[in-house]
């Protein structure tokens, strides 16, 4: 049982005109097995929340605390956060030229497990994860995210989610740019990780579409750098009907 606890998180970014505050005090608690959807308009700070928790150097924490099972993750380097059990599925996964998916995954799993996986079982694990996401075996020999289609990038993210077995995963607009078939395949991957590893999920999305496949236990509306309304799945239904207009004007 794990708990990601976010208390009063304030984050700013440096710009040419000085620092700009993006997150203005975010409170959120995610436990193993729970799925939290964060919904909100573009520019509300949803992605900033995701990247700040993962430790992207662009974001400066100016206030608040984030703990995973009581440990202060804001004090940790990016790789230590991953080792502590955090995972970020990125909206725009980064190309790493010349580094094959297979080499990348082996290096990552070795770092996370503290020892190199046994070759035979590992090859089987990767093969299984790829098949489950309807990915061609040749995928493993391609360079990380290089020349991947939008759908391939997202499948690759979810494949990592399944292989690396984090405790808490943040999915940053994993649904964006996916057609219906890809959305279903990717969602099934997330649901498998929830079931197999009792994963806690923070699902960031602009649209309610993905919530038909990954059912949230809690829905949080995010606007202007903070959570402005919280509720159950019914809140997503309401947003589907009314949009974000009432929150943006606040």
């Amino acid at each position, binding site marked *: 049982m794990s708990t990601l606890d976010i208390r009063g998180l304030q984050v700013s970014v440096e710009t040419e005109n000085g620092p700009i505050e993006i997150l203005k005090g975010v409170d959120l608690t995610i436990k193993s097995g729970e799925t939290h959807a964060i919904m909100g308009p573009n520019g509300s700070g949803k992605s900033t929340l995701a990247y700040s928790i993962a430790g992207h150097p662009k974001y400066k924490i100016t206030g608040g605390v984030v703990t995973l099972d009581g440990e202060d993750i804001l004090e940790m380097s990016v*790789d230590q956060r991953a080792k502590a059990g955090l995972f970020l599925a990125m909206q725009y996964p*980064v190309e790493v*030229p010349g580094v094959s998916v297979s080499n*990348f995954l082996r290096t990552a799993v070795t770092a996370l497990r503290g020892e190199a996986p046994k070759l035979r079982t590992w090859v089987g694990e990767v093969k299984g994860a790829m098949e489950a996401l309807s990915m061609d075996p040749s995928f493993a020999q391609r360079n990380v995210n290089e020349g991947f289609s939008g759908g391939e990038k997202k499948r690759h993210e979810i494949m990592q989610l399944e292989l690396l077995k984090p405790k808490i995963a943040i999915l940053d607009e994993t649904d964006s740019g996916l057609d219906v078939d890809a959305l279903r395949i990717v969602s099934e991957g997330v649901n498998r990780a929830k079931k197999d590893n009792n994963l806690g999920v923070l699902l960031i999305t602009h649209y309610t579409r993905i919530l038909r496949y990954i059912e949230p236990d809690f829905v949080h509306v995010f606007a202007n750098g903070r959570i402005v309304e919280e509720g159950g799945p019914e809140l997503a239904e309401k947003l589907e009907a009314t949009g974000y207009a009432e929150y943006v004007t606040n």
Partner: protein
Amino acid sequence: MSVLTTNYLVPTGREEAWRFTPLKRLAGLHDGTAVVGQRKSLAPSHDFGPGVRFSHVGRELLAPLSQSDDVIVQRVRENALEVAHLEILPNSEIAEPLMFTRVQSGLDSAEFSRVRITLGAHSKATVIFENTGDSILAEDIEFDLAPGSHLTFVTLQEWESKTVFAASHRAFVDRDATFKSICVTVGGSLVRILPTVEFKGAGASVELLGVYFATAGQYFEHRMHVDHLVPNAKSRVNYKGALAGEKAHTVWIGDVFIRAAAEGTDTYELNRNLLLSDGARADSVPNLEIETGEIVGAGHASTTGRFDDEQLFYLMSRGIELDDARRLVVRGFFNEIVMEINDEKIQERIMNRIDGELAKVGS
């Protein structure tokens, strides 16, 4: 000692070809003050099978294929009494790479080494030069590719730290022949290599590939010159370098000429540099001169940048430590070229050397 027949023009540093080179560090290879040693360091690493001949022949038997205006090449031709001659006989396809090493090194005198590599018509071979140890060496290699021949030439500069190495690698590529050179420079104090291509027949194709990694105080210059004199020839140049440390300096010059007669030319040259610390300097100068518009394509690109923070963040967000993430990115950067060396042991050796250079940098 023979009578000087050449009127040497000792470079001053103001000439275009010498404007980057620190002449004081050339150990006198350019101005005649180097002590001429008569060592013949180039030796085969193993026995060659049929279809291959290697011998040292008197220079009077093997005149240069063309004049050179490079003063160091001129001095090599003056000082080297013999030419190391490797011949691949016509129609011979040599499957195993032909490996050479430099067996005698030394810093007390300079070696002037002339080499000819001849490929008979429709022959095929891979030749690998492994340059190790410490030496002061001026090297003049001429490649003579007969029609329909195929040569891959790999030169590995894994020198120790005091080496001064100035080389001219000039390829004459006849009709439908292909020449691929892979130049790896990871060691030495000063390394200056001039890969040059002269097309002699239509339909020929060359690839000049290279990687280099310079750390504190090292000067590595790679200056190509590709001359499209004939129609329908193709050239590709791709050099990638990394630099780290105070006064690490690399120079890449890519001169490509498309003469009026060279219709149907297809050429592209690329140089990318990765600056891994402050205090290092990468000069990168692509230069394309075109005298005919009737070509398939001509282009060049040059980039110099630092570590991509987004790449490092992505890798680290999967649990990979910073040093390992940097190693992955640098290996990935060099991968496409190192993988062209058709020998896994050498690939791994080069990658390990690159890891070692990177480890010197620290985080």
